[in-house]
């Protein structure tokens, strides 16, 4: 076996004289892989030629925050006292959503679940419908947590993000623990600061590329802004109100040793891939 370096991903690139292409899979595609077989198959096929498929552990945090926590929230609403009907769950989400979360996605998820299982037209008693809804929400949260890395060969852990590694737990009472605790400079246990310092030039290259755009998206503009703030003081990132603002950059740089980036949000990833001089593929919208 020929190896160029001792790094595991470098080792994987050349085996028996054959080039092994490697790919970094973004969170957006990890989500696509969890959908119906019809939707997941094109993504799976596009990734098939890559012998080495990797993601960043920071993607796990995004995945958890965007989807798993939402299913866990729906589960928690179903378990609340006084919830005797599906309508009660919807009302509570609407009420809480105004003050705490953007509830549109939560309501969309819930409506799709209700429609999918015909709960809106079912003749089952109300308490049975609430139990069904609760268990389906729990099943999704647990199954998504369990299958995060099932399509991957490696997960990079450059930031050593503790929140990303925390599993979703089912308590003995049946409730779910999917909460993501706040990180602040005094309690953060990750190494995001070291990660930023080590890869400062790459972060700055991305920020430069964003600033050259005529009309960067809100996400990219925020990314560039927070990279500049971190450049002045890297401890700025030891706060979970700030580090998600540069999530795509963290994910890309964590896996920048890969030959190709694969993502389904070209708005951000085209700029990032260009800045890091990587090929970008989007299996969901093949050219």
């Amino acid at each position, binding site marked *: 076996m020929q190896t160029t370096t001792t790094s595991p991903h470098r080792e994987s690139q050349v085996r028996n004289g054959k080039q092994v292409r490697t790919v970094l899979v973004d969170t957006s595609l990890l*989500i696509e*892989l*969890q*959908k*119906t*077989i019809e*939707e*997941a198959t094109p993504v799976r096929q596009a990734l098939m030629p890559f012998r080495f498929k990797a993601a960043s552990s920071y993607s796990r945090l995004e995945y958890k925050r965007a*989807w798993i926590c939402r299913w866990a929230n729906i589960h928690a609403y179903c378990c609340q006292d006084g919830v005797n009907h599906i309508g009660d769950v919807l009302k509570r989400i609407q009420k809480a959503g105004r003050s705490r979360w953007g509830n549109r996605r939560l309501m969309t*998820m819930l409506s*799709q*679940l209700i429609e*999918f*299982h*015909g709960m809106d037209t*079912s003749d*089952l*008693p109300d*308490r*049975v419908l609430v*139990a*069904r809804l609760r*268990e*389906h929400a*729990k*099943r*999704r949260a*647990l*199954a*998504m947590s*369990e*299958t995060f890395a*099932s399509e991957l060969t490696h997960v990079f852990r450059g930031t050593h993000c503790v929140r990303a590694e925390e599993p979703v737990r*089912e308590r*003995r009472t*049946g409730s779910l623990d999917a909460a993501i605790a706040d990180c602040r400079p005094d309690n953060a246990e990750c190494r995001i600061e070291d990660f930023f310092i080590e890869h400062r030039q790459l972060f700055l290259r991305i920020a430069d590329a964003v600033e050259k755009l005529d009309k960067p998206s809100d996400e990219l503009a925020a990314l560039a802004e927070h990279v500049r703030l971190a450049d002045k003081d890297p401890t700025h990132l030891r706060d979970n109100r700030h580090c998600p603002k540069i999530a795509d950059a963290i994910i890309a740089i964590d896996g920048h040793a890969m030959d190709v980036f694969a993502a389904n949000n070209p708005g951000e990833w085209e700029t990032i891939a260009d800045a890091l001089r990587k090929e970008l593929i989007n299996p969901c919208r093949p050219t």
Partner: protein
Amino acid sequence: MTSPTLRADDVDTNLQRGVEDFAAGDRERTGGAEMTSYYSGSGVGTPNLLGGASALRADLRRERPHDRRDHEQLDRSLLKRARELVATIDNTDIADLPVVLESLDATVTQLWLKAVDASGQHQQVLAALEHAARSAFRAGTVTDGQLSAFREAIIVLGLPTVVSAQAAEVRAAFVTEGFGPMDIMD
């Protein structure tokens, strides 16, 4: 309600009972040989979701006695009906498959009537089964691997006690067979 009586030593009896229940229904068609191989874990291409008695003993030891309170059992006649429908799919013409899949979906949904008082792990297995049954009905087709996962979930639902490892195995088996956790999302 009486307090828990199930001990780790009872696991073999518990498992054997579930498998025998299934085999009693299945024997009419296959002579029970299929289930014998399930129990021994030697079925070709069939993951042994029952996990083996030793794994279950370890799971039960981890669970506290108060978690093992008596729960309502699922409706045996509906479970039998679901089992029969899964067996029927094997011999059904593809043109008639949607009718059988619709029946299976409806039967599994009716299982909730009693499952609402069953254990949380039974409910998790039923949720996974219901989701897969609805997905298969909407797709109008089902693969051999998916049928195998259906059979195994029904076996587990028939067990008097289900532990979290078994529920996780059932969830994982359905995901492996293409029923992704996110599969209703755009």
